[in-house]
């Protein structure tokens, strides 16, 4: 029988799991953004080995499921002597996976900067590295911020997949409680509510940021004509 009391009794454990989910999401997201930036820039360099490595990484990750990537890190790496805890394996998997997608976003952001900006910077004697750091990336990052915001919502939800390698996140905690008590309805409803309550405000925030940056992007376009 459905019981509100039962539901509340599950709450502390689920909230603890939610804490793990949030932590894993934030850490993976930040690391993935760094990885994405590095590989996005690497895709645009003139140094071909860097380009080749970046391209191979991105294609490989985009061409295989996240679930499989997690299995590789958690179950296959130990054969090579690399044993990782579920937490580390989960964060690593999400970072590698999202890093590849973010690299493509950064690349498209860099490509969106008009040739004239590069020329103006070069005509002032800037080196490639300097103009990338001072002229191209600051503009490219502004362009990709809305897209990157949506990645946070995705990574937050996709982090549920790490429960399959027994990381004690919200999803895993829910499954554990449910299989012990058979209160599937109460528990998974509660899990859904928790996911939604967290992701909805984030989605709103992303929408807001997107609108804000769309305007300033419009302004940037205005200057370029």
């Amino acid at each position, binding site marked *: 029988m459905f019981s509100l009391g039962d539901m509340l009794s599950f709450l502390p454990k689920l909230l603890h799991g939610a804490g793990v989910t949030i932590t894993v999401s934030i850490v993976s997201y930040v690391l993935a953004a760094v990885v994405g930036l590095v590989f996005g820039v690497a895709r645009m360099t003139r140094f071909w080995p860097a380009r080749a490595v970046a391209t191979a990484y991105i294609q490989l990750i985009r061409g295989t499921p996240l679930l499989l990537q997690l299995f590789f890190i958690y179950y296959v790496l130990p054969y090579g002597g690399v044993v990782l805890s579920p937490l580390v394996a989960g964060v690593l998997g999400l970072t590698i996976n999202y890093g590849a997608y973010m690299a493509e976003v950064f690349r498209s952001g860099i490509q969106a900067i008009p040739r*004239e*900006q590069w*020329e*103006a*910077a*070069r*005509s*002032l*004697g*800037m*080196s*490639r590295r*300097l103009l990338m750091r*001072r*002229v191209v990336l*600051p*503009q490219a990052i*502004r362009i990709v911020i809305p897209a990157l915001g949506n990645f946070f919502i995705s990574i937050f939800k996709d982090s549920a997949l790490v429960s399959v390698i027994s990381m004690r996140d919200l999803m895993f905690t829910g499954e554990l409680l449910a299989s012990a008590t058979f209160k599937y309805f109460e528990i998974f409803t509660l899990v859904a509510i928790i996911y939604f309550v967290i992701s909805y405000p984030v989605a709103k925030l992303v929408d807001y940021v997107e609108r804000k940056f769309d305007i300033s992007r419009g*302004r*940037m376009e*205005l*200057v*370029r*004509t």
Partner: protein
Amino acid sequence: MIPDTRQDMGVSDLLRFERVSKTFGRLKVLSEVNLAVRKGEVVCIIGPSGAGKSTLLRCVNYLETIDSGTIFFEGKPVYRYYVGDQVVIDSERRVEAIRTQIGMVFQSFNLFPHMTAIGNVIEAPIHVLREPVQRVRERAIALLEKVGLAEKADAFPHQLSGGQQQRVAIARALAMNPRLMLFDEATSALDPELVGEVLRVMRQLATEGMTMLVVTHEMAFARDVADRVVFMADGTVVEEATPEVIFSSPRNPRTQQFLQTILERNGRG
């Protein structure tokens, strides 16, 4: 009097093109161009669109590469040249060092949109020349004053008119203390009422003795300011003379025809 550049073997030439050619695919955009700009001289390049004027200008700071011939800057061959029969390609570092001495003003201004006016001006002196921030700031303020925009120092490019943006772009180039200034149709993208304020700044620079190579459609500017006017068509220098000669008694029929068309259009406008 402008001395004949051929007489002094190019010693005081700040910039010289020798038989410079360039092709885009099958299109020959520059064909054996010879041209010299002496120190302190203002040279205006005029001609129909597609003549190779902008391309020639962009070769000066290696935004375009050349296929053959040699470009000399301050008497030394630059970018890509032959020593004996050995081709030499300058390192990026040398190319960048040369570019710091050549200011360029673009048709579309190309200010950095994420920086304020003064931010645009101080950017390269601080990060490329590594000059102390305080000194650069003072110079930047003086330059913005000079182009009449001191009060717009903290404005972003999108808050400025085209004419104001272009004047900031000129200040940005001047902040590097260049030995040569290139103007690539600096007023072509401007509304007619904003052209004057930019030309005024360019005139002032000329009177101060700045060496300038100017691609322009402003015939009045070329006539009044240039020491020499170069008429280009189909990738070649067709005629090169003082503005008096070019505008009142051009020798080449193509120059005559071009100026005729321009004058007629202006007469009607």
